[in-house]
């Protein structure tokens, strides 16, 4: 008897492992009144952190003052916002307005959680950065309003480049030459900050080589990462490490922050980095600011220098019961005067063309070090707008593919063939 109890207690301890439960209920039907009054819940996750929150709180207060009878209930979600939104969608307790990562937009729309913003996304053309409009679209309908854009550019050590008589590289081949030269000329400096652990630093190279990540024909998505262009792009990046040894071995698992840290310590001559990486470098080593320079991304054999448009979109949830106020609040937040203070505080570009122009010419991105980011913004693309893209990112399939090439576990062809299969399984027709 005693030992049976022991089995029972031990197995119930094992049961602690299993805490998976879920429930799915539809949100209550929205009651759409036309009046702008009453309360709305507004949720914001990253990139609205502690430094940006006061600005947003002030904007919410301004909105309430301008629209008597309204109340904006702000909730800041921090870095784990994606799961919070998914749980709230599954549980039917969604907010009215939410700032969501642009890659989540098709996913949430696919879950039928978002209110359509424009039946014809072409009507948004010219008002917002094109790649950001693309990120809001699922099956020809736009489900969100582009809010901020994060792009990457080249960050390099101007002092080292000047000493070697080098100009900012315009192509990936020039990047290789410049990085090799800088590394040879400077003991202890790595030519290029390789970021093996984060796909957004090198996945866009597929576009630069003239390839595609996946293509859509008649609603069916097919992975194209096994194309010769994509294989060549991944091979080029992996060889920066394996053949040319332009970064420490450990960069196979580096994230952007690792490269930025090495850069700030003076151990890296050049890297691809977002404006946030630039900020990190300067914060960690303020003395280095004068030696830094930035340039738009280099172009590849495909003749373009397109990079990924990261960022956030403002979305209205279908379950919102006060859509009139939600819409009016989104309009309020999108006004250039209200948008720019927030994006400036984040250190990202605004996603509207007007605000972007203002930032580029006279605003915070007119500074010499940041100009390259504003110039890069039009040359960006969005990831495949398919609701199941999150599965590709979630399993780390793309990073695993690059790492297996870098570690020599697989040939580029084999790794990309496997990756294509994984992407097809995730986003292809079920």
């Amino acid at each position, binding site marked *: 008897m005693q030992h049976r109890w*022991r089995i029972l207690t031990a197995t119930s301890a094992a049961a602690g*492992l299993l805490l998976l439960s879920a429930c799915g209920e539809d949100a209550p039907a929205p009651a759409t009144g036309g009046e702008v009054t009453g309360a709305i819940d507004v949720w914001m996750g990253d990139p609205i952190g502690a430094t940006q929150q006061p600005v947003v709180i002030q904007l919410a207060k301004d909105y309430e003052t301008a629209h008597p009878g309204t109340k904006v209930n702000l909730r800041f979600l921090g870095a784990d916002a994606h799961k919070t939104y998914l749980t709230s969608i599954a549980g039917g307790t969604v907010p009215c307005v939410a700032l969501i990562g642009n890659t989540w937009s098709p996913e949430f729309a696919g879950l039928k959680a978002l209110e359509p913003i424009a039946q014809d996304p072409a009507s948004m053309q010219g008002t917002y950065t094109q790649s950001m409009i693309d990120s809001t679209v699922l099956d020809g309908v736009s489900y969100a309003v582009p809010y901020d854009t994060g792009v990457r550019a080249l960050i390099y050590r101007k002092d080292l480049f000047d000493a070697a008589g080098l100009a900012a590289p315009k192509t990936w081949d020039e990047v290789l030459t410049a990085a090799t030269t800088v590394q040879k000329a400077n003991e202890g400096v790595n030519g290029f900050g390789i970021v093996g652990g984060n796909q957004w630093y090198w996945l866009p190279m597929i576009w630069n080589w003239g390839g595609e990540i996946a293509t859509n024909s008649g609603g069916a998505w097919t992975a194209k990462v096994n194309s010769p262009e994509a294989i060549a792009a991944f091979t080029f990046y992996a060889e920066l490490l394996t053949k040319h040894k332009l970064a420490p071995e450990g960069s196979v698992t580096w994230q952007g922050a690792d490269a930025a840290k090495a850069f700030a310590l003076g151990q890296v001559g050049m890297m691809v980095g977002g404006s946030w990486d630039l900020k990190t470098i300067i914060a960690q080593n303020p003395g280095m600011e004068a030696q830094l320079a930035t340039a738009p991304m280099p172009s590849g054999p495909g003749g373009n220098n397109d990079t990924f448009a990261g960022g956030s979109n403002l979305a209205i949830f279908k379950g919102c019961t006060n859509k009139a106020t939600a819409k009016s609040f989104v309009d309020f937040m999108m006004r250039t005067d209200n948008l720019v203070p927030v994006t400036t505080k984040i250190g990202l570009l605004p996603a509207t063309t007007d605000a972007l122009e203002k930032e580029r010419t006279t605003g915070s991105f007119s500074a010499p070090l940041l100009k390259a980011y504003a110039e890069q913004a039009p040359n960006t693309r969005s990831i495949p707008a398919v609701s199941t893209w999150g599965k590709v990112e979630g399993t780390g399939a793309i990073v695993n593919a690059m790492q297996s090439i870098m570690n020599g576990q697989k040939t580029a062809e084999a790794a990309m063939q496997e990756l294509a299969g994984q992407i097809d399984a995730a986003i292809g027709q079920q």
Partner: protein
Amino acid sequence: MTLTAQENRRAGAPQRARPPRRSLRLDRFGLPSLLLAPLLAVVVGVVGYPIVRTIWLSFHEGEYLISGPFNGLDNYTALFADPYFVAALIRTTLFAVVCVCCTLLISLAVALVLDVGSWLTRIVTVIVLLPWAMPRVASGIVWKWIFNDQYGIANWLLVSLGFDQFQGYAWFNSGFSSLVAITIAVVWHSVPFIAISMLAGLRATRGEVLEAARVDGANFMQLLLRIRLPMMKPLLTILGVMSTIFAYQSFDHFLVMTTPPGGPSHSTEVLSLLTWLQAFTVLDQGAAAAMAVVTFVLLAGITAVYVRLSKEDK
């Protein structure tokens, strides 16, 4: 025959207190059950429901946190057809074996040192407990720094000791070296609890038996292997079960220390991590539940074996 009033009461008291026959059942079964009911309800709700729900989910489609239609054994057949899952299953088991052996041996050594009983023991006991008090994610981050290729003190220490091949050695570039680092971190975290439990066990083995053996001339190793450890067998079984479960549950260290979680190129994927990825990033609750059930069955099996082993030796 006369009885005093006092004796009368003494003799009569048990008779009066003896319950009527029909309420005997209530006393032996009814009342205890009644008293246990609230606790049982909690246990059923907190342990029973998730298990039943997980098993139920594992036979259903479950994409996007929404349970779909019944799909039979599809989730299971898909799991075992996936080479990465099978690899993770084997990897987890090997990892658990190494972890459990290291944890138990190191804990025993620590417990024996603490058992010496000098005045230092109390201070050392507190220090030994510290890793246990540390959140696992925090310790994972610290260990990741320790094993950093450029600035980590692990490489610095190894190079200082003359192992020059560790200059800039990237621990997290390959599956094997990543697992070595993670094993060290996990063992470091599990040792305190097991060691303190073993110390309690060792304390309980002091006394006459030990004294008698000493008089008979048994040395330290004989005392330990022939007397103290066999006396601690029931405790060791429980500790073995617990550290096995700890090892299979290891998740935080894998999540924090590897990039991407389970990488590089799938080489550190373990069951707990795959289950989490499947549930919360791929959002396939059905497949995740199937993985959880496989882990559960595996652990229940291992536990049964442990218990059987300890019973046979009694």
